Structures are given as C-alpha cells and as structure tokens.
C-alpha cells in the first residue's frame, strides 16, 4: 500500500517539478519523511530518486542544444568533493536541526519561484 502511494506521489512530484522548473528533491524529501523515513534517510534516498529525472531531462534538453557540456563537467566534477563535506555535516546534525534547516531551504525555493513568476510578467 505504501509502495503504491509512493509511486503515485512520485508522478505528482515529477509533474510539479517539470511544470515549475525545480528539481524533484525539494518534493521527494518531504514525501519520503511523510512515508515514514527519517530526515537523513529521506535526503539520501532523494538523491538516488533524482537521477532518473535528470537523465530524462538532460536527454530532452540536449536535443535543443541547451546543455553547455564543458561548463556542466566543471561544475559537476568540482561538486564531488563538496558532497562528502555536505553528507558528513548531515550525518552529524541532530534530526530536528536537519529538518528545520531543510524547511529554510524550502522557504528560499518558494521565494525564488515567486520572484521568477513576477519577473516573467509583461
């Protein structure tokens, strides 16, 4: 039952992510905690869940010639070392602190979406 619900929520999260131009992670993490995972396990699992969406997204975008591969490679490779630091910090923080920090990230994302929506107005 939980599994069917997870798949359904996956579709919803994907549609919203595609519609509003955000990654799935911002929605995967709250979904996974709602399904009963701890904040840390939800974050770790979210990163793996992001991969299929990214693969499909890149495949679509590169057909339009929008991907600048060299820049993407530099950013991606530079990020690898920093992910170890980020994961270490997440491991060491208490569950409730990590959850509250994530809430702040959600607020920042909301602000960015609202700002983009207003900017596009004619």
């Amino acid at each position, binding site marked *: 039952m939980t*599994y069917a619900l*997870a*798949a*359904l*929520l996956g*579709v*919803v*999260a*994907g*549609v*919203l*992510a*595609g*519609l*509003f*131009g*955000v*990654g*799935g*992670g911002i929605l*995967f*993490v*709250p979904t*996974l905690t709602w399904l009963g995972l701890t904040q840390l*396990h939800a974050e*770790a*699992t979210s*990163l793996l*869940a*992001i991969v299929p969406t*990214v693969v*499909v*997204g890149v495949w*679509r975008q590169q057909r339009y010639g*929008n991907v*600048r591969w060299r*820049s*993407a490679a*530099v*950013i*991606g490779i*530079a*990020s*690898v*070392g*920093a*992910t*170890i*630091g*980020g*994961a270490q*910090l*997440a491991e060491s923080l208490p569950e409730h602190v990590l959850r509250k920090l994530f809430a702040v*990230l*959600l*607020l920042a994302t909301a602000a960015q*979406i*609202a700002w983009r*929506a207003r900017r596009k*107005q004619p």
Partner: protein
Amino acid sequence: MTILRLVLIGLAAGFLSALFGVGGGIVIVPLLVIAAGFELRSATATSLAAIGVTATAGVITYVIHGDVRPVYAVLLGVPAAAGAAGGASLQQRLPVRTLSLLFAALLVGIAIRMLLQ
C-alpha cells in the same frame, strides 16, 4: 576566470546537494545567470547535466553510510521522471505564473509544518 567561477558554483552546489538531498539547481541556475552570464534556458539545461554528477557522488557517499533506501528511490524516481516530462510540456498550456505563486505557497506551508514539528 570563468573556470574559477564554475568551480566555486560546483563546490557550493555539491555541499548544498548532499546536505539537503536535493539537486542543487536552486544555487546553480541563478549563479550561472548572474556570475557566469548564462541565458536562463541554457543555465537550466547545464544545471541538470551537472546535477547528474553531483547527485551520483552524493548517492555513493550515502550508500557507504548505509542511508539510501533503494526501493523507495526507484518507486518515487521512475514515475517522477515520466511525470516531469509531462509537466514540462504542460508549461505551454497552463497559466504558469499564477500556478507558480500557488506552488510557492504550498512550499511555504510544508516549511511551516516542518518548523513547528
């Protein structure tokens, strides 16, 4: 010089991504536009490709710690990939500006709930 900026963007994105379990597009996209002079469309596309590497690195780190639940990742991630393709094509047909404000309000609601828990 641009290379240095891209490296700094990568470091910030990698840290944020692994700390919060997100892709990091929230920092990569605006920084590519503001600091590296990208147009929004190519910033978004380039960010996606970079996130592929970042998320994979994060997953490996968390797998070593034993924190990843692969069944949930597949159940959520594979339907989401299909949904995202659908959502992107809906963009042309829906009043996205109004919906964006509603979506931002939804995120604020989730955030408040998490802060009060």
